[in-house]
């Protein structure tokens, strides 16, 4: 196999391994089981949303509102428990259903506005980014809600056979996403939708319903992630999920998806998410000023796509 093809196919994975080795050689604690588990837990919550975002971006759309939807879902869930006097049993199930339902509803609104009013998804979800954050602040007048019970906290801090619960859920979501994308009609239809929307329509696909479905999917997963985040932190903050949209979109794009649609995959997205996770954790361990981290992550996003385009160009010519 030619080098350019190798780079094109496994480039991000190679960079991920190289980074892990580099950080590990600088600081032995980096590769400790405890630190790796902490990296994975950090990555999980964003990663769950990124799985949904992969579908959106493959369909040639984008969702800028995921962070706000996540915050709103988490806040609404906590507020519902508080409203009911901390009574429902088990509280976590009540919260989980609320968060997921709110996320799905928000996604449905984005999908309908995009398809029925023909507003580009960038604009719809840019509006959503602001509106859902405002709604989050309204719910509890900007204040946090905490004091969740142990059953609730388990979803964020517990573990199953030594693996943190959020990591287990991320693994399940990612596997399901991968199977759906690779082996089901729905997955194939999403690629078709992003590849050529008019050809998809003329092939008899219901493009409006399909478009709406990807926003519902990412919204639902944002709701789930919001629930897990609040369980992990032990509180729902009005600012929860701020800036997630960037990290999530970056994971998908570093993973090889094109914003013009039709290409990408959950496998790549997971590597993209891990890359960002390893990078932020490693930089912290090396004691790099957190302001630099933001700069480095920004550069990595651009570099990853540049590398990919370069390799693609080489592989074609």
């Amino acid at each position: 196999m030619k080098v350019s093809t190798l780079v094109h196919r496994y480039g991000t994975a190679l960079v991920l391994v190289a980074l892990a080795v580099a950080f590990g050689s600088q600081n032995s604690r980096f590769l400790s089981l405890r630190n790796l588990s902490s990296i994975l837990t950090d990555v999980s919550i964003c990663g769950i949303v990124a799985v949904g975002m992969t579908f959106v971006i493959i369909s040639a759309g984008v969702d800028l509102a995921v962070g706000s939807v996540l915050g709103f879902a988490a806040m609404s869930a906590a507020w519902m428990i508080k409203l009911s006097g901390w009574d429902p049993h088990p509280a976590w199930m009540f919260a989980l259903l609320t968060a997921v339902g709110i996320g799905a509803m928000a996604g449905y609104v984005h999908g309908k506005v995009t398809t029925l009013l023909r507003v580009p998804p960038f604009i719809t979800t840019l509006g959503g980014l602001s509106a859902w954050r405002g709604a989050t602040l309204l719910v509890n007048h900007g204040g946090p809600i905490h004091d969740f019970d142990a059953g609730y906290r388990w979803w964020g801090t517990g573990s199953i056979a030594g693996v943190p619960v959020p990591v287990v859920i991320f693994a399940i979501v990612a596997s399901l996403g991968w199977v759906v994308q690779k082996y089901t009609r729905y997955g194939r239809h999403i690629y078709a939708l992003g590849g050529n929307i008019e050809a998809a329509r003329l092939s008899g696909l219901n493009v409006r319903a399909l478009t709406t479905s990807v926003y519902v999917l990412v919204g639902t997963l944002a709701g789930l992630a919001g629930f897990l985040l609040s369980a992990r932190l032990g509180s729902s903050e009005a600012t929860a999920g701020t800036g997630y949209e960037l990290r999530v979109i970056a994971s998908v794009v570093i993973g090889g998806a094109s914003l013009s649609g039709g290409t990408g995959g959950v496998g790549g997205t997971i590597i993209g998410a891990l890359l960002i996770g390893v990078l932020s954790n490693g930089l912290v361990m090396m004691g790099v000023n957190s302001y630099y981290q933001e700069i480095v992550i920004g550069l990595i996003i651009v570099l990853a796509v540049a590398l990919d385009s370069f390799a693609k160009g080489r592989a074609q010519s």
Partner: protein
Amino acid sequence: MADETLIPLLEARGISKSFPGVRALDNVSLHVRRGEVHALLGENGAGKSTLLKILSGAQSPDAGQLFLHGLPLGHSQSPLERQRAGIVTIYQEFNLLPEMSVAENMYVGREPLRFGLIDWSALHEQSSRILSMLGLRMDPRVAVRTLTVGEQQMVEIARAMTFDAQLIIMDEPTAALSGREVESLHRIVRDLRQRGISVIYVTHRLNEVSAVCDRFTVLRDGQFVADGRVCDHSAADLVRLMVGRHVELLRHRRHRAPCEEALRVEGVSSQPASRTRATSLKDICMNVRAGEILGLAGLMGAGRTDFARILFGAERCSAGELWLKRDRVQMPRSPSEAIRQGITLLPEHRKRDGCFLQQSIRQNMSLPNLKQLTRWKLFVSERRETQFVQKYKAALGISMASDRTPIGLLSGGNQQKVLLARCLALAPQVLILDEPTRGIDVGAKSDVHELIRQTADTGVAVIVISSELLELLAISDRIGVFREGQLVAEVDGESATEQGVMSLMAVGTAA
């Protein structure tokens, strides 16, 4: 005839070019004289596109040399440098900016300036001068998107003139034009020749070669086959040189008993809704029987494509009633509804509306048919999908190395066969084919004709839209003629003549 000067304007000597796995050009030569229209002929995959890319500077050859006025041209020149040298290429897909005006498009990047700002009056004056020199009555201020395809082509030519072009390369310039627009293009090409400008003219329509071209070069499988004067060769000679075998474009009359009616429409009318649909349909009544091939003739903009898209639910009509197998049904409101009713459309623009270019042949073929390929109604079975693709590959004679290669890498003819397979697998009762052979080579064309006949023989009602009259005459049992949104006549396929149908298309009455 053109002035025959002995020093060629452009000479390509021993050009070779390889791509991974393909030798696209092998020691090809080309001589274009000053002030001649030179036809570049060959089937798809013969190497014409690669040669054009090398001439236009978009690619450089592995071996060989280009000469302009006998002086060698450097290889690594960019298309822009070639344009400055006077070699301008007009591609099949136009490079126009739809939102900008005609004048802006002609001078984009080279607008006349005054005090560092665009000098609009000079811009409009200069472009008007070129437009009127070409005999075009066109306002340079109008936006290009409001023009017809034919007019946009004229803008491309006018743009070429702003470069003081000595050689204009036209890649299938008439592929999307209607009869009248072809005529005016030919007039302009002859006019360019009068001015001493040479034209390389790539086309699949051989009657055009005798109409406008002086000399020709034929390529086959990346190799030079022959060149010569057009007047010394008949169209049949040229076809034989191109395909290396004798292809008969004769009528194949099918003999079958009349079957029951598959589809009938009455009173189909539509509004000219958008700029993509300039025509309004007026009270179309028509039927087609199972096993019948109904050809739809008409000039571009006569409403044939609109009619097809309405039948397929891709566009709405303002009035109209539909019967399928004598049952009154609702007009489909979406393509998916039409497909459920048994109506399928092969769209007019293969790449724009048919193909998923990034995706594999396999994915392109199976997309709307995945339901029949799933296990437990959920998972697409790789094994069944492979069998599915192999079945249609064999049935339609699709040549491909692997079904995992992107469809964009196939030749036009093979792409069309993949899309045809996609339609056939939906098992339609009524199959509508909009320009099924546009831009595909002679060999693939007769394959597609044969497939259309076979499909009709299985009892499918086939409606074929084509701008090539000879094609309609060759395959149709019956021909409906559209003119300005109306179905003006129906003629029997057997007794129809080219002149008769042309006259109906152009003036609405038989000659």
